[in-house]
C-alpha cells in the first residue's frame, strides 16, 4: 500500500456490507408487507367510502406524497423522541416507510377497484353474490391483475427509498458503504458493488413486471 493510513477492502468489510444489505432487504420487506395490507384497506376506503370519508382520507394520504420522505423520517424520529418514546432507528424507519408505502399502494388499489367497474359488480350482484363475495371473487382478482404491475413498481421504489433510513442513523447498505468509503478510500469499487446490489434486485423484478403487464394487456 502506498503508505496510507487507510486499509484496503478485506473480507471483514465485505461481510459488513453483506450484513447491511440484509438489513436493507429486511426493512423493505416488512414495510412492503405492512404498507400493502394497510394500503389495500385505504384504497378500498377511497373507492367505496362516503364522500366525507373519501375526501379526508385522500387529503391525509396526499400529505405523505407531497412531503419528502427524508423529512417524514426525521420528523417522526424526533417526534417520538420528544413524546418520550424514543425508538430504535430500525423501528421508526420501518413505521415511516410502511405508512409511506401504504399511501402509494392506496392509490394503486383504488385504481384497481375502479377499473373493475360498476357493470361488472352489478352482474355479480345480480347472481345473488353479496357485496363481500363480489369483492372477494370478482373485484379483487380482476383488479389485482390490472394493477399488479403498478404494485411491483411501488414495492421496488420502497426498496430503493429504504436507503433514506440511513439519515436517522440506521446502518443499511448505503450507509455501510459510506462508512467503508472513509475507511478504505476505495470508494468507487464499493459504490459499484452497492449499486450492483440494488440493480440486481430491482432490474429483474421490474422486467418481470413489464412482461406481465404486456401479457395481461392482451
Amino acid at each position, binding site marked *: 500500500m502506498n503508505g496510507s493510513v487507510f486499509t484496503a477492502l478485506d473480507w471483514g468489510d465485505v461481510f459488513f456490507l453483506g450484513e447491511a444489505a440484509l438489513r436493507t432487504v429486511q426493512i423493505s420487506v416488512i414495510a412492503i408487507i405492512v404498507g400493502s395490507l394497510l394500503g389495500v384497506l385505504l384504497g378500498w376506503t377511497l373507492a367505496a367510502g362516503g364522500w366525507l370519508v373519501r375526501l379526508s382520507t385522500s387529503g391525509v394520504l396526499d400529505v405523505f406524497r407531497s412531503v419528502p420522505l427524508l423529512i417524514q423520517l426525521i420528523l417522526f424520529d424526533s417526534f417520538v423522541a420528544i413524546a418520550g418514546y424514543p425508538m430504535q432507528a430500525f423501528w421508526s424507519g420501518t413505521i415511516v416507510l410502511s405508512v409511506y408505502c401504504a399511501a402509494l399502494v392506496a392509490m394503486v388499489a383504488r385504481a384497481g377497484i375502479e377499473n373493475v367497474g360498476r*357493470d*361488472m359488480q*352489478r*352482474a*355479480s*350482484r*345480480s*347472481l*345473488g*353474490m*353479496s357485496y363481500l*363475495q363480489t369483492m372477494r*371473487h*370478482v373485484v379483487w*382478482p*380482476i383488479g389485482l*391483475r390490472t394493477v399488479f404491475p403498478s404494485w411491483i413498481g411501488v414495492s421496488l421504489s420502497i426498496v430503493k427509498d429504504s436507503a433514506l433510513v440511513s439519515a436517522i442513523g440506521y446502518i443499511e447498505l448505503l450507509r455501510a458503504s459510506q462508512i467503508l468509503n472513509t475507511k478504505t478510500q476505495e470508494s468507487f469499487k464499493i459504490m459499484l458493488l452497492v449499486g450492483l446490489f440494488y440493480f440486481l434486485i430491482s432490474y429483474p423484478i421490474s422486467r418481470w413486471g413489464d412482461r406481465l403487464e404486456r401479457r395481461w394487456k*392482451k
Partner: protein
Amino acid sequence: MIQLENVHKAFGALEVLKGIDLTVREGEVLSVIGASGSGKSTLLYCVNGLEPIQTGRIVVDGTDVHGRGTDMNALRRRIGMVFQQWNSFPHLTVLENVTLAPRVVRKLSKKDAREIAISQLERVGLGDKTQAYPSMLSGGQQQRLAIARALAMEPAYMLFDEATSALDPELVGEVLDTMRMLATDGMTMIVVTHEMGFARDVSDRVAFFHQGVMEEIGPPSEVMLKPQSEHLQKFLAKVL
C-alpha cells in the same frame, strides 16, 4: 309472480318511472319495447333490487323487493339477469364463470356446481368451450355464457336487458335462439329488447314504455298490429 304497484323511480330530479303497475305471471314472457331513455332498462334494475325506488312496491313471490330486512342476495338467486354488456368475468374460464355463483352463493359442492354448469353450458351450445377464457369467445358466445351463468342459479325468473344490442348483427341470431328456447321451456321472462321480431313471435304480452309511462300492454297481435297511442304508432313506424 312479479307484481309492480305504482312504482316511481327518479335519478335526482329526473323521473324515469312514473307510476308503473304491472303483473307478470308464472311462465309468461313479457317483452318491453320503447325508445332509449323510456325507463325500460331501469325497470329491470328495480325488479332485482340493483336500483332503489322512491314510492310503490315491487313484490316477487310475496317478497317485497325494497322492503326493510329483505334478503336481497336470497331474492336475486331467484331472479337471473342478462345485461347488454355481457360482463363475463375475464379472470375465470367459461366453466368457472358458471360455477362461481352456485359455489359461493348456493354453497354447492364443486362436483354438483360443475354438473349444473356443464348441463347449462350444453343447453346454450357452449359445451365444447368449458376450458376457454372469455377473451377467446365471440360476443355472441360471451352473451350465451352470461345466460348460462344466470341459469346455473336455477332462477325462477330471467330478466334480459337489451341482451343483443351490443352484438354484431351476425351474432344476434344465436342469442335470440337461446332466449327463444328458454321461452319454449316455460321460463318466466321479462325481455327489454329492440328486436321487434322476437317481441312479436315469442312473447305472450308486449309492453310499450314512453318517457317513464307504460302506455300500452297486451298480446303482440294487439299492441304491435293495432297500436292505440300516437307514441307507439310513431315508434313502430320508425323501427319496423
